[in-house]
């Protein structure tokens, strides 16, 4: 499980929606990657030096490939979107804790993803053996990864413009479809995660949410990526945990978001 920085080779890259890219990398990191972990990619442009964290969307251990699905958000991701088959990229991995599969095994679960938080939910939906209700929120009819998610459970969609599924967000989709669960797994924008935390507390069920923060090292050394925690964290001895190392997945009740 040792973390490494190494050179990965691009197996393929495809644009799958407006501004959204699907990148497959050949790398030995695939052998030990677990669901909900992330890797960092380093841009080649030396004016952009910090590593870019991207969640692992799918793992193929046999073919030693990692799949990443990302949105072009700035300089680094714009550079990555130009990567062609056979080209290389420096990566750091595998990082973070990942989703606790055992918590949901055999239960009724919600697997919830919002926007660019959807990619890590694909591998989760494949690995988890449970009664899976997959609830995903998009801006519009550009519903990337939806067909693949449908192979792993019942999918409910919400779109901001109402063009597909429920109008609104993932919480609206839950209400409209009258869904219930014993355990929640989620990744997405902060307002969505806050709403999920509130919902889980109200229902008295655990919610495992994947958080984002700006990072510098990605390995737990710089203390850049912290989140406030309810209890004193055993590493920091203050109420702060490192998202890159102690997370990115936390039980919602443990973090102050």
């Amino acid at each position, binding site marked *: 499980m040792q973390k490494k920085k190494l050179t990965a080779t691009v197996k393929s890259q495809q644009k799958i929606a407006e501004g959204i890219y699907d990148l497959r990398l050949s790398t030995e990191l695939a052998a030990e990657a677990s669901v909900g972990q992330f890797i960092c990619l380093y841009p080649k442009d030396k004016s952009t030096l910090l590593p870019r964290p991207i969640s692992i969307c799918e793992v193929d251990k046999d073919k030693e490939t990692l799949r990443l699905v990302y949105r072009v958000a700035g300089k680094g991701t714009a550079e990555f979107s130009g990567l062609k088959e056979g080209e290389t990229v420096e990566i750091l991995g595998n990082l973070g804790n990942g989703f606790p599969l055992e918590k949901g095994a055999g239960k009724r679960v919600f697997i919830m993803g919002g926007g660019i938080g959807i990619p890590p939910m694909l591998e989760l939906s494949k690995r988890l053996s449970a009664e899976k209700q997959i609830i995903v929120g998009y801006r519009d009819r550009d519903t990337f990864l939806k067909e693949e998610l449908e192979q792993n459970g019942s999918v409910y969609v919400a779109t901001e413009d109402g063009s597909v599924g429920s109008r609104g967000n993932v919480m609206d989709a839950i209400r409209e479809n009258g869904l219930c669960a014993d355990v929640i797994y989620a990744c997405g924008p902060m307002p969505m995660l806050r709403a999920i935390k509130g919902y889980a507390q109200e229902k008295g069920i655990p919610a495992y949410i994947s958080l984002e923060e700006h990072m510098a090292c990605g390995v737990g*050394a*710089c203390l850049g990526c912290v989140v406030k925690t309810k209890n004193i964290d055993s590493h920091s001895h203050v109420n702060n945990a490192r998202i890159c190392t102690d997370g990115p997945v936390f039980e919602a009740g443990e973090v102050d978001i």
Partner: protein
Amino acid sequence: MNTKVTIAGVTLQNPVMTASGTFGSGMEYGEFVDLNKLGAVVTKGVANVPWAGNPTPRVAEVYGGMLNAIGLQNPGIDVFIERDIPFLKQYQTKIIVNVCGKTVADYIEVVEKLGDTGVDMLEINVSCPNVKEGAIAFGQKTDALFDITSQIKKHAVQPVIMKLSPNVTDISEMARAAEAAGADAISLINTLTGMKIDIHKRTFALANKTGGMSGPAIKPIAVRMVYQAASAVKIPVIGMGGICNAEDAIEFLLAGASAVSVGAANFFNPYATEEIVRGIEAYMEQYKIEDVKELIGAVQS
């Protein structure tokens, strides 16, 4: 070939150290580099009690570098002595503990607690731009620097390195004040105060608004300041600021640094420190330099 350097009576196997706050206490980067190969590990700043640090975002990228406003989050000296020092003692590298505080008494409490722990040196951070009280206030006026340095020297068992701020008008004057107060060495530069604004959100990139800039973009400023400081004092100077590879490190040695610290470069390349150790050896071989000390301050006009 001799790569050893001696600073205030402490001999390092090579002049490459880590920069405080970028390497934790070595545990995290121990997965990437062999800590036994480093001249010294300089730890994250530690205070007398735990500090929670600043709100997030705490880091932001800027052209050729980064800004940070961590705010000196640390677990406090007691946990540090119990957990971090025993970890580092397993390795052959020297241990330099970076100390921060809000008042002179805070610094002295930490320095005294470290007295019998067997760490090799103390680096006193009077130059962090990211906390409101203490820290940088001691590092921007010669009389305040003189005062805190002489008080710490009265209580310190280990050699004291004063870490200077670049956010001053005259670095030579600060270096001389530290030397006059009895500092055993000085290190510089800490980060330069900077700011980044997100034009799309129209907000500050950092919750703290300002942050300390580090990374390769600050290197020319750091080299200049190390040169000026080394020319002003007789005590050893530890140079840092934007060092990413052996060439950068050698530039600092030539400017007058007896050792160098590698900071933000660890984030860009977790193997940086060990690569720099090897790169300095390769340079010495290439130019047939027997002793690394021949490089210190060897720049010619």
